[in-house]
């Protein structure tokens, strides 16, 4: 996500951060590069210009030129401006309160939506055709259901063929698949008989929405989400329909759904929707593409409204609250540890984690544990997206061919082992290795490589378990990005791990000594 923009920034800022003295000319040059980076990332022309002007103004002051580490100071200014651009003064204040502002991911989560009690809280979704409104409706319904809400999805798109059916299918699917506390659920309201060809059902949506609200009140629904038809911001008739829905229902939240790959035109559509509907927030979709995501900056600037959520995949749980400081950190190539930890927490419960930690500390981690970790890791997303969140790793990772298939192969190898072998890798002599290789459809070398990798991971686990969470993070951060990348590649391709088993023996000894000392 946003990887390309990060890289551009890194290039622009690298030659600054290395210099002990910075002249005004250096800064100007770097800002020219930053401006180009922003434009290539689809940030609107004027937004990019005013951003650079502001950074320049601050950066050419005495404060930076005479600072001990001017490069760092400069990066901080750029980062602060980015956070402000993405999340407003509050986000920046939050980021600064909790540290020195450019530690990634330490800002508080962006505020979620306004809820009213008694319900229903009405949310109206709007946007251009194909921006992802219907999918986002389904995702939001699941998001709220998880948090104990009773949600109703209303199909107010009577224009696009089968849009009503699509929403109904999604409502059913989310209600079935997403777990929520008792009382939470997702229902559907639609009047498919009112659908008509394009342009012939304009205005009908107003009635449908009114009826949905009536039904929602009757059913004691907490959140009513209106899925309106995609429309061009320059189509007066259809924009009029939205204004009428707005007047009739006074939704508590009006969210604009925008494709993160949108170019310069984001300015026009966001402005038009905001002018006519007074938006409350924005949802950026398709954020899992390789877009540089400049539209995020543009839309935030031109509407002044917060980005509430980002869509990160096709599955119904692929929606996240928007965190300005994290995205700014990511743009600057500083990683996003907080999102990573959150993703991990979604997959592993605290008890599970504690149990595994205990096992690791005692050196009792088995291949089964390794396999289940691997599977959980995969659920968190692609290897690249996970590693991309690690500080400093984005750049090093760029050229590494990380093949998801290799994880499949690793799984196949472990699954070809007997239970006894999985519990004790020392059993694995050459004959067993050959058998396993045959079972997994690979050569014996691959098995040996996996075993080596496993040994290294378990030794590392032992070492790390002595530290607290913070220590662990620090020890990771202490690694050079090359080491990190090597580790990353190792995870996907066990054979390329640097640590030989001799090394791991040495590590084991070191570890024992260390433990001894502590006692």
């Amino acid at each position, binding site marked *: 996500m946003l990887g390309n923009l990060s890289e551009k920034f890194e290039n622009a800022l690298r030659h600054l951060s290395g210099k002990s003295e910075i002249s005004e000319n250096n800064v100007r040059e770097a800002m020219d590069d930053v401006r180009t980076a922003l434009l290539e990332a689809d940030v609107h022309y004027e937004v990019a210009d005013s951003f650079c002007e502001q950074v320049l103004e601050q950066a050419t002051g005495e404060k930076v030129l005479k600072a001990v580490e001017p490069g760092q100071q400069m990066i901080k200014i750029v980062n602060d401006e980015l956070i402000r651009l993405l999340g407003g003064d509050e986000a920046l204040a939050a980021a600064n309160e909790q540290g020195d502002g450019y530690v990634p991911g330490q800002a508080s989560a962006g505020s979620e939506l306004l809820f009213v009690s008694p319900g229903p809280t009405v949310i109206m979704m709007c946007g251009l055709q194909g921006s992802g409104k219907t999918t986002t409706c389904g995702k939001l319904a699941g998001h709220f259901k998880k948090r104990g809400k009773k949600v109703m999805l209303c199909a107010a798109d009577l224009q696009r063929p089968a849009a009503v059916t699509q929403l109904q299918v999604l409502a059913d699917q989310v209600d079935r698949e997403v777990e929520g506390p008792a009382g939470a659920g997702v229902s559907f309201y639609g009047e498919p008989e009112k659908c008509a060809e394009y342009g012939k059902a304009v205005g009908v949506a107003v009635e449908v929405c009114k009826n949905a609200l009536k039904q929602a009140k009757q059913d004691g629904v907490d959140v009513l989400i209106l899925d309106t038809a995609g429309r061009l911001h320059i189509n007066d008739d259809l924009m009029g329909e939205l204004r009428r829905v707005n007047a009739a229902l006074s939704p508590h939240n009006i969210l604009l759904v925008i494709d993160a790959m949108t170019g310069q035109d*984001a300015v026009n559509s966001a402005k038009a929707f905001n002018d006519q509907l007074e938006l409350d927030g924005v949802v950026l979709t398709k954020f899992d593409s390789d877009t540089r995501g400049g539209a995020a900056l543009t839309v935030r600037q031109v509407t002044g409204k917060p980005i509430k959520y980002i869509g990160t995949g096709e599955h119904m749980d692929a929606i996240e609250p928007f965190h300005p400081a994290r995205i700014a950190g990511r743009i600057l190539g500083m990683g996003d540890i907080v999102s990573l930890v959150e993703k991990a927490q979604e997959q592993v419960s605290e008890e599970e984690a504690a149990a595994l930690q205990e096992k690791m500390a005692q050196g009792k981690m088995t291949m089964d544990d390794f396999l289940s970790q691997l599977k959980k890791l995969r659920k968190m997303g692609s290897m690249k997206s996970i590693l991309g969140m690690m500080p400093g790793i984005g750049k090093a990772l760029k050229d590494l061919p990380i093949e998801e298939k290799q994880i499949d192969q690793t799984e196949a190898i472990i699954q070809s082992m007997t239970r006894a072998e999985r519990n004790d890798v020392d059993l694995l002599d050459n004959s067993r290795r050959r058998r396993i290789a045959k079972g997994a459809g690979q050569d014996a070398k691959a098995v040996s490589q996996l075993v080596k990798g496993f040994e290294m991971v378990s030794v590392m686990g032992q070492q790390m378990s002595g530290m607290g969470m913070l220590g662990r993070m620090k020890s990771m951060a202490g690694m050079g990005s090359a080491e990190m990348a090597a580790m990353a590649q190792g995870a996907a391709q066990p054979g390329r791990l640097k640590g030989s088993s001799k090394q791991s023996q040495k590590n084991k000894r070191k570890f024992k000594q260390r433990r001894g000392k502590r006692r």
Partner: protein
Amino acid sequence: MGLFRSTVGKLVSGLRKTREGTGVAITTILSGKPLSKQLLRDLEKAMIQADIGIKTAIELRKDIEAGWERGEIDNGDQALEMLKEQLAAYFPAEDRSLRMAEPGSGPTVILVCGINGAGKTTSIAKICKSLRDEGKSVLLGACDTFRAAAVEQLEVWSGRLGVEVVKGQQGGDPAAVAFDATQAAIARKVDILILDTAGRLHTQSHLMDQLAKIRRVVQKQLPDAPHEVLLVIDATTGQNGVNQAREFAQSTDVTGIFLSKLDGSARGGIVIAIRELLNLPVKFIGVGETPDDVEPFEPGRFVEAMFEA
């Protein structure tokens, strides 16, 4: 905090200009004025705002600047004319009609692909309508087995346009649907088979592999097929459009672009960047929601529209 407040104020006033300024046509800025550095910068800005891309925009601006220095042009109108000529030159005269199968070799297969929400299904309805109007028999293949109600969406169109659809199981293998559809097209001796595929982000390699598989399956039955692989690109797409085109071209040998949603305020300049890097022709433009809202791509008019209000 005083510093913060003043800079924010400036940003807001800068944006006010954005808000009011975007509707102003570059023609009115340039018209009747002597050429200056400032006008050239405005020209570059107009290009960037059309999503042409900053590198191309700078190059083109420099070309015009060179022409100015050589004394070939000296006012805004001439500069704009020169720019339009250069842009139109990206799309030389070429055959932009659909590639058809050799007579007697079976149906023509058109594979339609693109990212989620690009406008594939609507674009298919448009192509289908214009082929029907030419008197061709058309069959549709609903290979989007993933998205909820995608098949139903295509079916609604097929009902309105009076063509048949071959479909499969929801969640089934799209390549299997492509196989069935191709078989059906051969057996029913239709002129044209149009395959609708699921929207996929070009970054998801397994989905791109799936698309390549659909292509292979079709090719196995009809060696020359698919005769046309159309990539649908949303005119509002920014620089990411180049990545899209590159990845899709790599996995399915795209033969042409359908530039959709050109009826909004977006200029669709991304096709110029795509043309420059991948040499892909634009074949059609989509200009509305009804099946009639399709036009063959015409470079002169496209470039003209790029700088209109």
